[in-house]
């Protein structure tokens, strides 16, 4: 995942680095040099930026209080200022890179603004690595968008049984397959699962989830095609209570957020079964619309977490960033293929670190 974005980020980072290096050289030679120290020493440093990995490590760890304040606090003896115009070219590269990776327009704007604010006008101590400054700015920006992440197993353990998880989303994003995968994932972690075949609209949907249930050895509660999904899911919850089952996974029919009636139906399901967790499922290949529909779903029926499917199709994964930015909810899983095992918990920190780690 994120391979292309990684390459892009790397090249942008390099460009930013060069720009800032040049700027630094200039500043050494001219006005920004602080009078208290001689210029030969910093010049020498700036010409050989490579041997500074240790400060970078420590900086990364201290990332928490936010880049801007941290830099300010570090600045004591020597500093120089990064001006907006010095990095504008690189930022426009970054913009194209994000857009090409399917990061939606609004999310791209947010990331750029953040990086720009962090970098421009920030004062940097000459001794620190340029690389660290940029890495931190980008990493902060991305993390601020992706959020903290959540551990599904911890969440389940903290809830009363049966834990009810409802899957929603537009048509064709892979809800039913995701339900099967999550069921498989949870049973592998020693939990018992029952599935409610809540997609009563699409022809063949009940058969589809039924076959999954059979293959995974799980109980699937189903009614006829065209019946009320709330009733199906209610029955599933009752079944789980009676049989002491840990988790109920509720599948639903795909629906577009601009269909008032269908959204009302979803609201009814929500009222009837009172889910502990609403998982919104969307696909990695979606473009700008990902933002619009995530916002609409979030507004009308709410969502607590996001699952991104078909990541194997689009390894750029920009949709993850778009959706997270739009609704501010954590991504819990990504789906990476057609098999039951093709599912991965999503950890923003690891992903961002990977994105920004060295060469692509």
């Amino acid at each position, binding site marked *: 995942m994120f391979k292309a974005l990684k390459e892009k980020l790397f090249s942008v980072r390099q460009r930013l680095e060069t720009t800032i290096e040049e700027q630094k050289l200039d500043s050494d030679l001219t006005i920004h040099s602080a009078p208290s120290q001689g210029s030969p020493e910093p010049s020498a440093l700036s010409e050989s930026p490579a041997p500074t990995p240790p400060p970078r490590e420590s900086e990364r760890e201290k990332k928490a209080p936010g880049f801007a304040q941290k830099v300010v606090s570090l600045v004591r003896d020597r500093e120089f200022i990064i001006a907006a115009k010095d990095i504008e070219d690189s930022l426009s590269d970054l913009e194209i890179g994000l*857009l090409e990776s399917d990061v939606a*327009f609004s999310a791209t704007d947010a990331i750029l603004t953040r990086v720009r604010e962090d970098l421009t006008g920030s004062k940097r101590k000459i001794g620190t690595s340029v690389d660290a400054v940029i890495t931190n700015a980008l990493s902060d920006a991305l993390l601020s968008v992706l959020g903290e992440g959540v551990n599904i197993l911890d969440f389940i353990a903290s809830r009363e049984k049966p834990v009810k998880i409802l899957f929603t989303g537009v048509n064709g994003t892979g809800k039913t397959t995701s339900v099967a995968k999550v069921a498989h994932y949870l049973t592998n972690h020693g939990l018992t699962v029952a599935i409610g075949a809540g997609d009563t609209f699409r022809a*063949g*949907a009940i058969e589809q*989830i039924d076959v999954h249930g059979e293959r995974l050895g799980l109980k699937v509660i189903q009614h006829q095609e065209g019946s009320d999904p709330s009733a199906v899911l209610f029955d599933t919850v009752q079944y789980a209570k009676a049989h002491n089952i840990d988790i109920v996974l509720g599948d639903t029919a795909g629906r*577009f957020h601009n269909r008032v*009636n269908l959204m009302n139906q979803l609201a009814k399901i929500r009222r009837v079964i009172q889910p502990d967790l609403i998982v919104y499922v969307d696909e990695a290949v*979606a*473009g700008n619309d990902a933002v619009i529909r995530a916002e609409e779903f979030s507004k009308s029926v709410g969502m607590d977490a996001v699952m991104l499917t078909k990541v194997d199709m689009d390894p750029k994964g920009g949709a993850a960033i778009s959706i997270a930015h739009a609704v501010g909810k954590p991504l819990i899983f990504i789906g990476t293929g057609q098999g039951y095992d093709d599912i991965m918990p999503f950890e923003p920190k690891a992903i961002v670190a990977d994105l920004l780690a060295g060469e692509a």
Partner: protein
Amino acid sequence: MLGNLGTNLKDALKKLAGKTVIDRVAVEELVKDLQRALLQADVNVKQVMQLSQTIKKRSLEEEPPKGVTAREHVLKIVYEELVHLVGGKVDVQLGRQTILMAGLQGSGKTTTTAKIARYFKKKGLRVGVICADTFRPGAYTQIKTLCDRVQVNCFGNPKETDARKIVAEGLQHLKDEVIIVDTQGRHALEDELIQEIIDLNEMTHATHRWLVLDAALGQQAREQARRFHEAVQIDGVIITKMDGTAKGGGALSAVSETGSGIVFIGAGETIEDLEWFDPDSFISRLLGMGDLKALAEKVQESIKEDDIDVNAMLSGKFTLRDMYKQLEAVNKMGPLKQVLSMLPLGGMEVPAEAVDVTSVKMERYRIIMDSMTSTELDDPAVLNGSRVQRIAMGAGATLEEVRELIKYYKMMKRTFKNLKGGEKGMQRLMKKFGRFS
């Protein structure tokens, strides 16, 4: 269905219309707005850059022909380049043919297969469908159910795991004029599945290989289309789920990548929701120039002669009876919003409340109107307090509901009246190109 892309493009052009001088600055601003609109619609980034460069270059370098102002000329260039972007018109022949459906998982291949089967069936051809999706559980049940609904032959075997075998048997078994092969969803990085579709293409000697793409598809569309095209030479694209808020820009990029055109557009969950695609109309609608041709077709297809008189409506003679018929027709014709998008509104704003009436409400209105007399329906002006009370009692509705209906009627009437007077600004400009003369 075109949502914001249309609005954004229209805004960009409106801005241009308001400019006194069309100079480099004005053109650059226009191009920037266009870029934004297209990028937000998921059109491929590289393509957007290319397109905007062309528009800029042509606008600044080309000398407008005699009698055409610089502004009109720029508009014309934008129009032409956008039409160019959506590709040529694909003619659907009505004859013996085999169609191979290809696409990513969850793009709507099976639903679209059924819709196309219905399309050909309606045109009087015998149609057979082969279900070559051997992977997804329930796929056969799905297509079988849909085929039964439109009374089309369907061949498949949920127990068989070899798609090639099913297709070979199906080709022997089905003797229909139009054979549609629905395949399993796959993406370009799955080599085995790509090989499978290459084999299926050879086996069936398919006349057409149509790529089904989700309107929400983003930047990845172009790459996926390229790989599919390399494998089986895609000769048409079908954009699905255009009833959501997605703009289909990714699919447009796929079209230009494959050098094909858009054949159909899927815009709804029921089996009738399939539109034949005409690039000219599409762009016209996009730019708010209206698509009278499509509206006429739609009206003809879904409404019996005495049902609705569009001309009378536009001339401001809009009675409650018209509204009643309209509400009835709405079910057949699709939502009012969609219908309105076909009218040449130019930059005109239609009040959102006029189109945002849910189907439940429509049904209530219909029931209330059932309790009205002919006089009241033909001349709503006679409605007074006592009449309103009688209607409310008759329909089992509250007084507020009846009043709300009347309010809604008045707003609709005003809207339609305005439509007629809405030919201003850009609309007049476009007329000069002879588009609607």
